[in-house]
């Protein structure tokens, strides 16, 4: 069991990485990335059984698929700090000829990535396919996926939701980053998601709600509960309430930083709120 203080330090360092990566190229998606720092840190440093000596097939290890690929900065940071590739490579984010493309891809061979994502709504289906293969092979490890809440507006998500329930895919844990925001405003302003827990329940999923998605101890607990709920004939969804832009006062709780980079001054202000813990890249 990783020390919670260490995990919190890691999440803070990940936030620094996100801000510095996005600032350096003046493009990218810091808001959702910052909001998911605890989730990714808990997933890779505590929850999943995974091997940073990467293999595409990932036999006998837990797998993770990111469906909302625009929050690539948080994933790249956590992958690098988990040993999948050198932390220094974070400095190449969105540069020409780099492996850290704007949205994640297998195309450049970056270890840790198993599918391209960016065009929304596709990752859950891919995760379900990998989960089918694990069952066929008698591999009892789990398949995790993350999608955004706005992403649930894509129809393919609900095709996948029906399939998972019909096939009792109980080796799948989907987390929804439930920050209530999307590019053009709040979910409620753009296209209301309605009663999200009821929707997933009525689609036949085991629903867990995580109210404190930016509290490391709570996130660890939610993920442990999700794992405990697996293997019981139902796919599991964790609706994780997060705060977009969490950790920096002027970025927090607004869709304004969905896809906007901080200026030099804003970066300095933000980093001052998140003192270095484990060393910048």
């Amino acid at each position, binding site marked *: 069991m990783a020390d919670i203080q260490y995990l919190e330090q890691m999440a803070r360092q990940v936030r620094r990485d996100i801000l510095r990566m996005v600032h350096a190229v003046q493009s990218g998606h810091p808001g959702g990335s910052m909001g998911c720092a605890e989730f990714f840190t808990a997933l890779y440093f505590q929850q999943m059984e995974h091997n940073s000596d990467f293999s*595409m*097939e*990932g*036999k006998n290890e837990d797998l993770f*698929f990111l469906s909302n690929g625009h929050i690539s900065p948080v994933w790249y940071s956590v992958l690098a700090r988990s040993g999948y590739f050198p932390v220094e490579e974070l400095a190449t984010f969105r540069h020409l000829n780099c492996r850290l493309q704007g949205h994640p*891809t*297998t*195309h450049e061979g970056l270890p840790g990535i*198993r*599918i*391209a*994502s*960016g*065009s929304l*709504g*596709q*990752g*859950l*289906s*891919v*995760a*379900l*396919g*990998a*989960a*089918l*293969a*694990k069952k*066929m*092979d008698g591999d009892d490890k789990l398949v995790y996926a993350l999608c955004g809440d706005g992403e649930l507006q894509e*129809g*393919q998500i609900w*095709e*996948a939701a*029906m*399939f998972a329930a*019909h*096939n009792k895919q109980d080796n799948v844990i989907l987390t929804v980053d439930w920050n209530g925001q999307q590019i053009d405003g709040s979910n409620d302003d753009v296209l209301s998601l309605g009663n999200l827990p009821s929707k997933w329940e009525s689609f036949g999923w085991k629903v867990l709600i995580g109210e404190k998605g930016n509290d490391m101890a709570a996130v660890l607990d939610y993920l442990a509960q999700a794992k405990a709920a697996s293997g019981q004939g139902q796919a599991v969804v964790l609706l994780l309430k997060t705060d977009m832009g969490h950790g920096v006062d002027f970025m927090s709780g607004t869709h304004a930083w969905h896809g906007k980079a901080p200026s030099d001054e804003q970066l300095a202000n933000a980093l001052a709120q998140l003192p270095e813990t484990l060393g910048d890249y």
Partner: protein
Amino acid sequence: MLKDIKSIGKKSTRDGFGDGLQALGQTNPKVVGLCADLIGSLKMNAFIEEHPERFFQVGIAEANMMGLAAGLATAGKIPYAATFANFATGRVYDQIRQSIAYSHKNVKICASHAGLTLGEDGATHQILEDIGLMKMLPGMTVVNPCDYAQTKAATIAIAKHDGPVYLRFGRPGWPRFTEDMPFELGKALLMAEGTDLTIFATGHLVWKAVEAAKALAEEGISVELINIHTIKPLDEEAVLASAAKTKAVVTAEEHNIYGGLGESIAGLLARKLPTPIEMVGVKDSFGESGTVTELMTKYGLDAVNVIEAAKKVLARK
């Protein structure tokens, strides 16, 4: 020899797919099947009966099917994801583009009822743009076999190719004539040697090209007949060699002339060996309801149209 090419009766190319998949299921345990509520139409029953644990019914949800296939391929399986050509391409283009082609997944997209020959269902189902859609994707292999035996052989052969493949076939009973011919993915099949012009044909139109070539032979015109079953990657060497020899080219396909085989060959010849070319195909139009025979006639996909194109190109030599 042209005169030796004979039909031994009719069987559909989709039967070739079903029988190929069954044969493959018995020899390759990595092969899995997926279908979007069209098992009977795709002739997948035999595979499913023999390997129920390796088949996934996904319902009327093609986008999810393509994603599932990408996930299965990620974990080492060889998925054959099957539905009608219209729903296997246009409906799910972005899923194929991102989750399969760009992600370089070993998924076989198996598309039946392509083109006009699905008949009475009409234009909503008669996709004539699918070859173009698929060949535009980097890394996608596009295969359009011409009869039962070739479809069966192609279904089996693509399992050995590591990468995404679009396999296109059709609904109607169709003459069987390639039983004794070899099939090699990516290699043009020389069916008859000739000197006056070359006909490059794909899919159902290969038989029409055989009929046309025989009629032309009776008029003393020597046709080189080449079957291009693998439209991408195109066997450029074979195309260029034959065009250099006959100096006149006709292409024939059950597809829009935009985006199809003709366009691929015209592009190649324009770049490397400018040669007069005429194209038999649907002239930038949707289809409509009708019998196969009526549709082939109305949309200019008969032997007579191939003959007409041949004479036209000979006049331009």
